[in-house]
């Protein structure tokens, strides 16, 4: 795993270097700023998605949860005029709850994660349409959300000036969303590597039966993993709402696939039990850098789609190659049990 994230970091660096040399204006403060503000929420989604995948599941509904939470924020703020400091915890709670429901379907009703979350994908998106304040009160479609607690998330810090470097180099302004992403990263990484719960996640994903026999409450662990994915989706939704000052019914559509792609590129194995937070986060920014770089180079977007697919395939192919090599090296002592 360590070597995999090193390889990813190397690949990221190489991509940046390549675009810096070839794409006009790629190596500029504003591109870095765009990357930070435009892909921090993708990184948060990818980190959230990593949890269900770590416990050998998948969550297809996080895009729909983003839409649902976005619409809840919209309704609370514009229709019910709930103050922002109350909306924030409510939104996070709603996201976690929607995620936990996925977990309950998977654990207690023993549905396959793919099907359970496919169904909730449709159900959450349908719920979003049903509660849409844009349909209920047509005038609100052109009313931005102005609550400073919410829009305040879209703030930029002139780090360069604080550090007194602005005279030397043109430093990007750092968006608050990026800081949030770093905070989420720090918390989840600590949670995953330094707490009992993190070990339980790896154990459950790595060997479900062994985890159960070791006295780990695997059901609780799995539900929590899905709830965390939902919570991350809610955080991403808040960032997006702040960025757009509104929510649309289609908010977050299709983002689950981007998040899964970022997580997989980031070395989170779909077989469960392998991966950390660094990979998915970097994977999201890698996808972002590629999209921005190719756009700056004037490559049409359909070609970008092809290239993204090819990179994803290459990433898993490379991962597979590594594991096959490892297997071969260790085939001697680790053949199947007698």
């Amino acid at each position, binding site marked *: 795993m360590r070597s995999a994230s090193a390889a990813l970091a190397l690949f990221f660096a190489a991509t940046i270097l390549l675009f810096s040399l070839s794409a*006009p*204006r790629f190596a*500029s403060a*504003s*591109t870095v*700023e*765009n990357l930070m*503000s*435009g892909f921090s*929420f993708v990184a948060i989604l990818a980190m959230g998605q990593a949890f269900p995948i770590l416990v050998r599941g998948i969550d297809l509904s996080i895009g729909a949860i983003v839409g649902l939470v976005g619409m809840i924020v919209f309704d609370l703020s514009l229709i019910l005029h709930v103050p922002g400091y109350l909306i924030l915890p409510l939104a996070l709670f709603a996201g976690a709850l929607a995620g936990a429901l996925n977990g309950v379907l998977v654990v207690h009703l023993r549905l396959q994660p793919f099907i359970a979350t496919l169904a909730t994908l449709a159900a959450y998106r349908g719920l979003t*349409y049903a509660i*849409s304040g*844009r*349909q209920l009160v*047509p005038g609100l*479609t*052109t*009313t*931005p959300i102005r609550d400073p607690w919410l829009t305040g998330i*879209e703030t930029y810090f002139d780090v360069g000036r604080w550090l007194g470097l602005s005279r030397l180099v043109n430093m990007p302004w750092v968006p608050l969303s990026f800081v949030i992403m770093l905070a989420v990263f720090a918390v989840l990484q600590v949670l995953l590597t330094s707490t009992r719960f993190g070990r339980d996640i790896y154990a459950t994903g790595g060997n479900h039966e062994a985890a159960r026999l070791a006295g780990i409450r695997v059901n609780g662990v799995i539900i929590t993993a899905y709830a965390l994915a939902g919570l991350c989706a809610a955080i991403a939704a808040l960032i*997006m709402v702040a*960025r*757009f*000052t*509104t929510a*649309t*019914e*289609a*908010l977050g*559509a*299709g983002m689950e696939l981007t998040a899964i792609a970022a997580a997989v590129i980031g070395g989170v194995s779909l077989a469960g039990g392998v991966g950390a937070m660094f990979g998915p986060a970097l994977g999201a920014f890698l996808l972002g850098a590629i*999209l*921005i770089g190719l*756009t*700056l180079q*004037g490559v049409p*977007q*359909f070609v970008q789609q092809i290239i993204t697919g090819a990179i994803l395939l290459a990433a898993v192919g490379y991962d597979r190659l590594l594991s096959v090599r490892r297997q071969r090296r260790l085939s001697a002592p680790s053949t199947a049990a007698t």
Partner: protein
Amino acid sequence: MQEEKTNDRRNFLKTIALGSAAVAGAGAGMFSAPGDRPIAVGMPRARAEGTRYKTAFIQWQPHTVPAAWSKGIEEVLGPQQIVDYELLDGQNKVEVQVSLVETLISQGASVIFLQPIDSVALAPSIAKAKRAGISVITLNIDATEPHASHVEMNHYYGAMDIAKAMGDAMGGKGKVAILNAPPGIIIRDQRTNGFVDGLKKHHPDIQVVADQVADWDRKKAQDVLNTILAANPDLGGVYGVNDSMALGAVDVAKEKGLLGKIAIFGNDGETAALESIEAGELTGTQYTDVYQQGRLAAAAATVLATGGVEAGAFAQQSRLLMPYVIATKANVGSIQPSQRW
């Protein structure tokens, strides 16, 4: 009619040129109080000789309308050897459009043509572009943030006119169905509201019996209308929120021998729709010369990019309203081949 059109066109060009110049003058004279507005990066006006101006159009998603705009824009910008132009795809996602605007900002574009998916959601990005000295021209969908210019074929009033024309065709009574777009994009709301309000105003006896989502899609429209017809065999009118969906309705009517019995209206006025009207199948559509709309936007852009007008200088945005007609069999012949897109 053609004479009139060309005159219209000339008048529009003049309006734009003069209007923009006036705005620019006003801006230069009145709003650039030195010191209080630090002009940020990428000031296009301060360019050295020989640099190229970068422009781009962020469309909603690939579709006939933005494709025609793009063609119109290219017609004007293409011959101008100092302007680069490219078409970008918003993938029907707000976040993609926002990210593209920001990419264009960092690229130092001069003018951004934008067909926003949502009026509010793109507003912060437009504000940001303005701060960076970039002029934004919106097409068809306005944004809540004032910007350089808005070129639109009005959806709300157009849909009202469609309602009126449809009601006339139906004799002022009966049932109609709307083939609608999925929620999440603002033209859907504008057109639907306009249509419903238009019926209320002009033909209060007509009743909307179905409002179903057909995903902008001809095939989906066929399926949906088939079912609606099964539930309401006495349907008198169908409004497709775009032409593709209206043509899907035509397919169904043709198959069931209902042509002439159901008034079918579309919106936008693409070539296929006009041909269908000529063939006596589609009843009508809201037509505007979208090429021309693109050309107008491009003309405005040319002035904005090269004419030394500062993007932050606008107190108010200019609005260019495209003339539209409700094209029906009676007047469709007057729309020239070169105006069809």
